[in-house]
């Protein structure tokens, strides 16, 4: 179970401020923050707590089981962002 962020994200980072497990990235100040088109939730870390959904000013966050059809790509996209990130981190290390 996880939440996912859809393409209507405006990157205002209200979700990052409230996430108790720090699973939303990239964070302001991270090297990939400015170029990111949206924020993503790491499905391996998300504890399904709902705090980000409440905080999002544009309702861009959905539970994985209830994502609108137009955002059906979002679950894979969020997961892929972290899969690539960990590859990049491994390569850099």
């Amino acid at each position: 179970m996880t939440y996912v962020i859809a393409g209507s994200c405006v990157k205002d980072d209200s979700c990052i401020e409230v996430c108790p497990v720090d699973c939303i990235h990239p964070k302001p100040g991270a090297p990939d923050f400015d170029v990111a088109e949206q924020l993503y939730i790491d499905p391996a870390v998300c504890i399904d707590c709902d705090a980000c959904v409440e905080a999002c000013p544009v309702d861009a966050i959905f539970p994985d089981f209830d994502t609108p059809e137009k955002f059906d790509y979002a679950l894979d996209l969020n997961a892929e962002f972290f899969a690539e990130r960990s590859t990049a981190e491994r390569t850099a290390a």
Partner: protein
Amino acid sequence: MPQARVAIVGAGPAGAFAAASLRRAAGAVEIDFFERLPTPWGLLRGGVAPDHQEIKRLEDTFHRQTLARGVRFLGHVDVGVDLSHAELMRHYTAVVYATGAQTDKSLGIPGEELPGSWAATEFVAWYNGHPDYRDLEFDLSGQRAVVIGNGNVAADVTRILTLPIAELERTDVADHALETLRESKIEEVVVLGRRGPAQAAFTSAELRDLGRLDGVDVVVHRDEVQLDPISRQWLEEEGTFTARKNVALLREFADREPSPDARQRITLRFLRSPVAIEGTDRVEAIEIRRNQIERDDEGTLRARPADAPAETIACSLVLRSVGYRAVPLPDVPFDERHFVLPNEGGRVLGPDGTAVPGVYAVGWIKRGPTGILGTNKRDAEETVAALVEDLRGGALPEPEQPGREAIDALLAERQPDHVTVEGWRAIDAHERTQAEDRPRVKLTTRDELLERARSG
């Protein structure tokens, strides 16, 4: 010392984030928005595409964090015309400019001034019901439109030209635009990108949307999504997550077969620049040439003209979207090279490079036209931190006329029709109640807006 008072010029997203941030950082400071239009929230109302209503929900947050917390709205007041910068400085402890980037860059090619050739932002302002653009007449009676540019505005105008009318009817698109779009005869929208697929500035979300429009084929030529060696290396070594997604999406588009019952077609062309717009009395065609990607001395990938014959595309409408520029504000320093207010962390600098006490900038007029809505939040926090530091450090002298009554008296004289928060609430409530299956039905002339505001 009496209560500090701050004027924010421009009630768009940058101004709204600045007011909200200042409210949080220094709750007792009095804040007034000065806005040229009778309505607040700038590009959230007049720029964000009508089919992206979810993004427009940000207006609720803006309202809650500013107007509902005592920030005053003074709309239909043009700073530089109705009130001068010097007058604001006489009445406020600090003035924050949040005026955005109001003009578009031109292509600098022959024929650009022909009827039928427009800035995409004019089309955007028209379909979003901006009162200064509602009387523009877009001729959609031809079969092909050409959109120049690969950013989010290019994606928006392409989508608005191809969205099923039934979907558009459920949005807050301006009624005059809905009428014109309903009669549109445009069958194909060709989108030209100067650089290649790996460098396209679309977000992958925007690109994906173009490929999912009901009854619309998206066409990409296979040879134009083959990456040249320089772009391939760049994508592997430095490419962003979005750039890799875009290339994958474009390859998927290139593999699609045309649908026999498609209503319209979007053709995405890459490595193509316009050379001239042709036509006798109006736009009839556009001449384009091929580019190739080269790496310049600084390592940046650039499009350079390739040795190839020019190509002519017949079209009746050209919308250019190749960047924006701020315009200078009367009596405020301006950086003519970068088209921003010269500033350091939001403190506006004078010709000698030192900060002009009490003058700040936020948003596009501060950093140039980059980033998305949320980018303004951190930008605003930086400017507000500087302002609060100056305020608490005693760097801001008390203005000559620090009371609210003085500015109100001046406003009553200069712009007696100015719109207050009550006026805006009356406009907002009216627009929402007029709508049945729509989020709102916009009032689109100043007269209608002002008349409704007076009823509030």
